[in-house]
């Protein structure tokens, strides 16, 4: 009797598990949110959240990624007499060395790009990474909106697998994906491992580097909320710089 209960219980678990897998695949085969919604959101609607300053980022992000909230705080609603807190410095950025070259730019070093701009957004990506691809619309929007205001985006292409190391494949994929910003070819993943110390590096991972080579933003993953934060942090840093 006891074993038949166990059997029925196990059967229930198996059926429920299969149902959940099928439901997830059918309901949304690619559940990560598109970042187009983040990119499309006018900058005035972006939350002025600072990385790490939210009380519960994970709870908030669950709602953020489901859909852009129509009640997203507007600057008018958050205007206070006190100036916003400065964006914290998270450490000193590394340089990019031992590269196999650059695409989409005449620059030959990260320093050169940094000196020509107020802020540099550095993203580690690889064209075969699905999550990276989802961030490209948001990065493209950021690039278009802030390029004339001294913000440059640098995609550090660190291949996960051998076919992603082929430069022709990278050029083809970059054109296909609309990546028009500078690409640093980190074919050996030297910089990928230097910047992300420890056994595991992540794609995508995005940083903001200021003119003094300080890291002001560091996030992993492709969350729409992450790229909204990125956009808002760029705006805040530019505002701080001009103040």
């Amino acid at each position, binding site marked *: 009797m006891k074993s038949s209960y166990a059997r029925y219980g196990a059967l229930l678990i198996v059926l429920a598990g299969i149902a*959940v897998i099928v439901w997830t695949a059918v309901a949304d085969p690619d559940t990560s949110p598109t970042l187009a919604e983040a990119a499309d959101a006018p900058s005035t609607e972006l939350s002025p959240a600072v990385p790490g300053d939210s009380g519960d980022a994970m709870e908030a992000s669950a709602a953020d990624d489901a859909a852009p909230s129509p009640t997203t705080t507007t600057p008018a609603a958050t205007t206070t007499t006190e100036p916003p807190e400065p964006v914290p410095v998270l450490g000193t950025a590394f340089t990019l060395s031992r590269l196999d070259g650059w695409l989409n730019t005449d620059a030959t070093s990260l320093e050169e790009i940094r000196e020509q701009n107020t802020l540099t957004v550095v993203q580690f990506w690889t064209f075969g990474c699905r999550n990276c691809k989802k961030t490209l619309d948001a990065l493209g929007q950021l690039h278009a909106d802030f390029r004339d205001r001294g913000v440059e985006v640098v995609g550090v292409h660190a291949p996960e697998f051998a076919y992603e190391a082929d430069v022709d494949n990278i050029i083809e994929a970059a054109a296909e994906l609309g990546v028009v910003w500078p690409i640093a070819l980190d074919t050996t993943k030297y910089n990928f491992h230097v910047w992300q110390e420890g056994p595991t590096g992540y794609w995508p991972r995005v940083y903001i580097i200021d003119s003094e080579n300080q890291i002001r933003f560091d996030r992993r*993953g492709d969350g729409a909320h992450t790229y909204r934060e990125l956009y808002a942090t760029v705006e805040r840093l530019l505002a701080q710089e001009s103040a």
Partner: protein
Amino acid sequence: MDTLVDTFTEGISVITWACTLPIALPGLALMLAARRARLTVGLLYVTGVALMAWAPAAGYWRTDLSGLVVVIAAVLAAGTYLAAWKAPAGNWPLAAGSGFVGGAIASWLWRPCVGPRLGDILNEASADELRTLALMGVYAVGALLPLLLLAVLPVAVPAVGRVLDRRHFAIAGAVLGGMYAITLAIGLYDDLIGELYRISSGY
């Protein structure tokens, strides 16, 4: 609650992604090899994966998988298959150990596809340890759900269990495990996974 559900479904959504292969394939091989203790092996495998995926982000594990460490990891990996194969029904510590160590080694090699939920877990890991560890466990259960179902299936349908218990399935698992350990030791494991990835992505 929303976070739990979202994390679980994000884990499920990457089941078919090639970037999950580095944890799914060794796990499948281990489950096939472990004829008499699949559930224990499966549960501990998921635990090992979750812990090792979380630890580097939380700052607890900084050892790079290179040089002699690779050989040690490969020998350990081979040992987990042997232990899973040999573990008698009542010897759950041996089965648990093989599952946990096997999961930890596979996760050490794993560079996950970082979606929104997993990104949050990794970003917050050092600041909110227990919560992110628990969420990583939920994510791993989602990503490895087919393995867990494979462990439960023989209980639900004993006829399936009798088929899976046949020696040739265990041999297939052990052979896969052996190939995994060898390719890991000689530095070809990434290339093998990359080739599977390339085929699946059409490049």
